[in-house]
């Protein structure tokens, strides 16, 4: 057993025994780790770009615990005009309220980002269709991909089986039981959730959940974490789970 595995097993044991907060466990892992994934969150003008400041770390801890990915536990805050934006192929944008329109440069950058392999997860913390963040986001995405509207993500999409076989979409509230997405060719670079995923992931510094998930409670929160992990894996493996070698296994499990 190497050092990493030893620490991991030890941490899991302590976690299971309730002796070590999850955040502390994540800190243990971060030592001399080779970071493979950074969760980058977009800051924008107007509105509230940061409705859940503590939401990312719990998700990253979960990602580290469940998968072979070594993520940075802290998020990276980025603007669409950052020169190093393309160092972070996974972008997250969240909010509650309507925000200022993107500049033309920002729109072009985002279009280029998404067209050449980047991924954008949109999370509506308000959950009101046609109002606030939802209204602004749909407006801006129309500018990024004119004529390419959001469409409901089919249940068979690779993003819903990239790690967990998801049958439900979690979040703080179920404003929309489905995900929406913009597809370019065979890729789906933009996925939109209106259930406030960040709210479900967020935990205070003492390790307590900040928002209650309704109406499904903790299973609904667990679905939100599963979706977050699935979307990260989808961004990093594309439609890998649609390769022929996976199809019979997945079909068998889904039909059980």
């Amino acid at each position: 057993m190497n050092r990493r595995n030893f620490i991991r097993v030890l941490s899991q044991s302590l976690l299971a025994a309730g002796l070590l907060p999850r955040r502390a466990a994540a800190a243990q892992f971060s030592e001399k780790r080779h970071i493979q994934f950074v969760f980058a969150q977009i800051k924008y003008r107007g509105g509230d770009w940061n409705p859940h400041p503590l939401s990312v770390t719990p998700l990253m801890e979960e990602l580290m615990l469940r998968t072979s990915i070594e993520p940075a536990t802290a998020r990276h805050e980025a603007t669409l005009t950052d020169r190093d934006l393309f160092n972070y192929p996974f972008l997250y944008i969240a909010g509650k309220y309507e925000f200022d329109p993107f500049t033309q440069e920002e729109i072009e950058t985002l279009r280029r980002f998404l067209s050449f392999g980047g991924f954008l997860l949109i999370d509506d913390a308000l959950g009101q269709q046609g109002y606030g963040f939802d209204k602004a986001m749909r407006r801006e995405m129309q500018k990024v991909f004119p004529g390419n509207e959001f469409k409901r993500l089919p249940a068979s999409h690779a993003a819903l089986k990239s790690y967990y076989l998801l049958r439900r979409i979690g979040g703080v509230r179920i404003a929309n039981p489905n995900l929406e997405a913009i597809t370019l060719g065979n890729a789906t670079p933009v996925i939109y959730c209106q259930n406030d995923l960040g709210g479900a992931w967020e935990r205070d510094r003492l390790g307590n959940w900040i928002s209650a998930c309704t109406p499904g409670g903790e299973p609904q929160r667990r679905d939100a974490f599963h979706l977050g992990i699935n979307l990260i894996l989808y961004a990093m493996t594309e439609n890998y789970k649609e390769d022929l070698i996976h199809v019979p296994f997945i079909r068998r499990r889904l039909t059980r």
Partner: protein
Amino acid sequence: MKELYFISSLPGWLIALVALATIALLLQQFLSLKQRLSLAQSWFLVLLRAVVYGVLIFFLLGPSLIDKRAGKLRRPLTVLIDSSESMAFPASAKAAAGSSAGKSRLDAVREKLTGGKEPLIQRLSRDYDLRLFRFGTDLEPIDATSVPQLKAQAQGTRLLELVQSVAKDAGAQSAILLFSDGIANGDRKTLEGAPSLPVPVFAVGAGEAEGFTDVRIAEVRAPQFAFRGREFKLDLTVHAAGLKGKTVPLYFNRGKNLITTRSVSIDADPFEQKIALSFTPKEIGTHSFSLAIPPQAGEQITRNNQKEFKVDVQRDKIRILTLSGSPAWNYRFLRMAMKQDPLIELVSFVFLRTPTDSVDVPDNQLSLIPFPIDDIFLEELKNFDLVFLDDFSHRAYFNPVYLDRVRDFVRDGGGLAMFGGVRSFDSGGYGESALKEVLPVELDGKGGYQSSGNIRPVLTASGKAHPITRLLPDPRINEEAWTKMPTLNGLNRVRGARGEVLLTADGAAAGAPLLAIGRFGKGRTLAFMSDDAWRWNFIAAGNRESPHNHLKLIRQMVRWLAQEPSFEQVQLRAIANARPGEKIAIKLRVLKDDFLPTSQASVQLRVIGPEGEPSLVSVSADTEGGEYTGEYTPAREGTYRVEAEASLAGKPLGKDRTSFSVAYGYGETDDGLPRADLLKQLAATSQGEFFSLSDWNEKSLEKIAARIESHAPAQITEQRQTRLWSTLWPFSLLLALLSVEWWMRRKWGLI
């Protein structure tokens, strides 16, 4: 015999008038003489004058003597003897059965022409102006004495074309006597649309259709190219004669291995059946296939029971197996590059969790599939062309025996690429594995993964010319493109390189190998000492540079590893199929390790004949750089393999193989059935006649003579005309008569 003819151009009435006037003149002379001479003397003189006048009037009638002589012409006769290979087939079913009377069709023709007390060829020479030819694919004049030595060896029969040509040259008075089995396999196979022949053709058919026994494979339609793993279909036709009621097996072989067997029930005579077969090749290369029916009892021709053909099996896709240690951006963009390449078929496994990662749901709520390690490494590995180990450590998953399999896979011609990361090279424990000797870098267990930024790639001298790193055709622009590539953040340090280093690292790790390539056995290997190549794609896109450099780099890596022909250092050019005896040029191109052409290489070129007999072909460098040519003349039909191997200063540069077919295009021996029908048609359309050789007798020759006679008679009558007035004796007679008259008149005192 001479006959008298009057050919005067004067009208008869004028001559009659002159005669009456002459009689009147004689009467007046008689009355005048009677007064001065006695009656007898008067009669004598008048009679003399009457004879003179009579002779003159006779000449007015134009008397001529015509001498008629009957004669015979020696008419030209062209005799054509078919000496094609099919004339070596048995003349009859009896002959095929191997009886003492067994003889070939040409034997039978020779016997007719040269046998007997007075051979036919002598009689023809006597009676005709004989022009004797043997023919097959061309026409060759022969003399009568060479007929017994004639051999059936022409590789085709341009029967209709040559008869047409001979008829045109022979002249209107001639005829053609043709000895053939009627098999015509030149450009023209029927008389349909052919111009009519100006001379009669007397066709003598050799070989008997009745009792002809043969089964043959005809019209094989197989693709020249097929793709590995994809079924290809072929169609063939089985023809049979004289075998009604029999069932014969048809064997379909690849090399000497039986693929499948079919039973062919022959239920008609003549019999024809189309058969469809298929095969799925599993290995690339040129494969020889054969279709065969065993010789049947009484069969006259057995060489047409088998057909051979070649199919060049290519890969339709380069099959790649990638094993990635975890989801990562490098995998994401590697996958994107491979998925966009239509030549690549990708099977990838990404280890989404390690054995120590915990899950919070039952397995049936996870999309994870068990890694089919036994299937992949014990069964399926041979079906891949390349294996990519992408930040993948074998230690958590592999029995070491699987790495032995990967090593053997490369040694046998597969390609292996290892991409960097914390699970690769020394960090992945490969320094103690079977792949240590395979990889193009030296591993000592001490090298580690270094996560420091700003590693810029630098092209080495080899890298500047090598097709993997040549992203742009112009060397200068290519170098410039590499200087603009985004920097990398991770580097696996290795002790050194054993193969060619194409890229080194700049910055803090200056000079460290970044991209190295090598060979192991028949296969190729590549080591890329970073897990950050994705930055050359996505960050380049962000910098408004082209992400295509990354895509192209991956594609070129794949093609070089898969030994795509355009990436070979020894490249044999395709050789067109040839005919026996035809000199062919075998061309090849040789590139150095830096992929620049060289004319200094030592090239060994071998041609292996249909029976496996090898021949070394001397090769010379052309004026054009890197091009070499050798000349070879195949002696006989069959498939010839060509192997080229080049080295420079003792260092092997590579090998290449190809093959070519040598065959006559006529299919002379495919169908041995005598074509009496065609000969009959030829004879009928030319006003000639058909004879079967077996029925040939004395009367046949007489019949031919009679037909030639009716066409243009040989009997001629020669006439010689002698005009009497143009001879001396009539003039002498007149002079004598007039002299006697003058002398008598003088004697009797009239003058």
